[in-house]
């Protein structure tokens, strides 16, 4: 089942050996749009400045790696694999001063980025995926994959339809091996949780998890912990009610900052933010920037999505306040997100300029919005049903 691994590793190794890109002087002068591959093999289009930013990001990733190695040398290997205190661990453990100090260091460190080579290990442990996996027999994933092989359901049909439409053109994902691995993860999950089954959007999330994690099985467990523990319930279920709730919470948060102008334009933030929350930015931000968001997401929880979404708007606040058309707002926001090649630029705004939000405040907001969302969905459902009855 994992015969595909070596080939993908090769592909990624190959990526890391790509020499620093040096755009020609002609390209600089003409401000040409150039195509290049980023750290994870995605083809990106950008101008010369974007290429330069990406080169700086590569260098920063290397530096950050050295910081992690140095800490490993002083604190011992795997020091960071202890569970986070904020996740309600036993009081005894959290009272230990060294543990607390480590947790503070770790939080800061993770916001600055986990080095790509350490990501699989760190994500797997800190997200709770390792724990989740440890509660079932060792052969769970293989057994599941075998048991569902050849079964056809609405979910599998939709998955098959989407495989070639998930990051088409990617050097590993868009190959027969890539499709097969993605299929096993998504189909497996669709049987694990039949309420979710398969929701479009998960294909992008799972694809990126496959690129990062060392094995397909670990990618599966990351997807499971994400949907079952990290994100809010019902984000991906039949009427996306959880997603509707998140959008309303986000709308309120943004309204406190700047949305009165946007509302006056008849701009609904969920026009752009739905994709952000359902694909966890994987379709909207450059890959390393997305993964930096996920670094923090897996450690600090779903509130991170609000931080980042708000930050994208805040970064362009002045420009947005000058717009007069919904279309202009959307164009600015989309152009901004697609060009956020420097993760630190985004995360600095997201965590230093937004102000603190606790998981608790967000939960309260969700509770407040839930009844309205349910009522709205129910109303629509009834209206549509009444149309059908009239029709007969």
């Amino acid at each position, binding site marked *: 089942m994992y015969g595909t691994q070596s080939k993908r590793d090769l592909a990624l190794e190959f990526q890391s050996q790509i020499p620093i890109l040096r755009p020609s002087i002609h390209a600089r002068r003409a401000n040409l749009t150039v195509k290049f591959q980023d750290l994870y093999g995605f083809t990106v289009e950008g101008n010369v400045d974007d290429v330069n930013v990406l080169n700086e990001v590569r260098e920063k990733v290397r530096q950050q790696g050295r910081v992690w190695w140095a800490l490993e040398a002083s604190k011992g290997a795997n020091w960071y694999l202890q569970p986070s205190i904020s996740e309600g661990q036993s009081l005894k453990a959290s009272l230990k001063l060294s543990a607390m100090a480590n947790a503070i260091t770790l939080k800061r460190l993770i916001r600055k980025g986990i080095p790509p080579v350490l990501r699989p290990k760190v994500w797997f442990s800190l997200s709770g995926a390792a724990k989740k996996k440890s509660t079932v027999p060792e052969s769970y994933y293989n057994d599941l994959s075998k048991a569902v092989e050849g079964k056809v359901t609405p979910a599998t049909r939709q998955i098959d339809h989407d495989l070639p439409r*998930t990051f088409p053109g990617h050097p590993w994902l868009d190959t027969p091996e890539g499709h097969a691995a993605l299929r096993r993860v998504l189909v497996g999950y669709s049987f694990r949780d039949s309420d979710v089954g398969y929701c479009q959007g998960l294909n992008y999330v799972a694809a990126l998890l496959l690129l990062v994690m060392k094995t397909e099985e670990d990618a599966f467990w990351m997807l499971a912990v994400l949907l079952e523990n990290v994100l809010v319930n019902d984000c991906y279920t039949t009427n996306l009610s959880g997603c509707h709730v998140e959008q309303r919470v986000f709308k309120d948060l943004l309204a406190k900052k700047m949305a009165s102008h946007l509302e006056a334009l008849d701009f609904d933030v969920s026009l752009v933010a739905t994709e952000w929350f359902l694909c966890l930015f994987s379709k909207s931000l450059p890959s390393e920037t997305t993964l930096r968001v996920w670094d923090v997401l897996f450690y600090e929880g779903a509130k991170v999505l609000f931080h980042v979404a708000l930050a994208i708007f805040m970064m362009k606040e002045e420009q947005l306040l000058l717009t*007069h058309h919904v*279309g202009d707002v959307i164009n600015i926001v989309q152009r901004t997100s697609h060009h956020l090649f420097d993760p630190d630029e985004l995360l600095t705004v997201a965590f230093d300029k937004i102000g603190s939000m606790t998981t608790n405040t967000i939960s309260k907001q969700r509770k407040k919005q839930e009844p309205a969302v349910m009522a709205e969905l129910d109303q*629509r459902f009834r209206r*549509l049903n009444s149309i059908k009855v009239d029709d007969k």
Partner: protein
Amino acid sequence: MATTGNKNINAKLVLLGDVGAGKSSLVLRFVKGQFIEFQESTIGAAFFSQTLAVNDATVKFEIWDTAGQERYHSLAPMYYRGAAAAIIVYDITNQASFERAKKWVQELQAQGNPNMVMALAGNKADLPDARKVAAEEAQAYAQENGLFFMETSAKTAANVNDVFYEIAKRLPRVQPAQNPSGMVLMDRPAERVASASCCS
């Protein structure tokens, strides 16, 4: 809603239809003149704009291309609210997609803007051998329901621009007085100041 000003019309247009019917491909063909066999699946919705000149006016379409999977339909009202036009897309090789299209028509008739210009597009017309929905059937349905109908192919470009052109022609030319914040003043600094302060 379509807004007019010096025969410049701004029109919000929404594409609705079953998953894989070719909504995104139609938009890509219309906006960029391209066709890609495997188009990334749309999540939530994607936004595009394209301007089209018809005899007496310039129409700027603001196009919302929506996601097709059933569970995304709960998001649809956000996209068709205030739309001046809709293209309901089905796949001529897939009967279920035609049934889904009819449901969209019903929903728009019940919920949408009553003056909305609606088009029914039978896409993938380049695959006549696999046809499951007769053009006559769709034509009759469209006529009964006050839509105009065309069979299209995003792949060969057949009828794609025509659908948008036909919509542009049918959009109402005279509108009741709109918000005075027309596009004409868009770039004037004075206007910017006014709108920035009114909302702070």
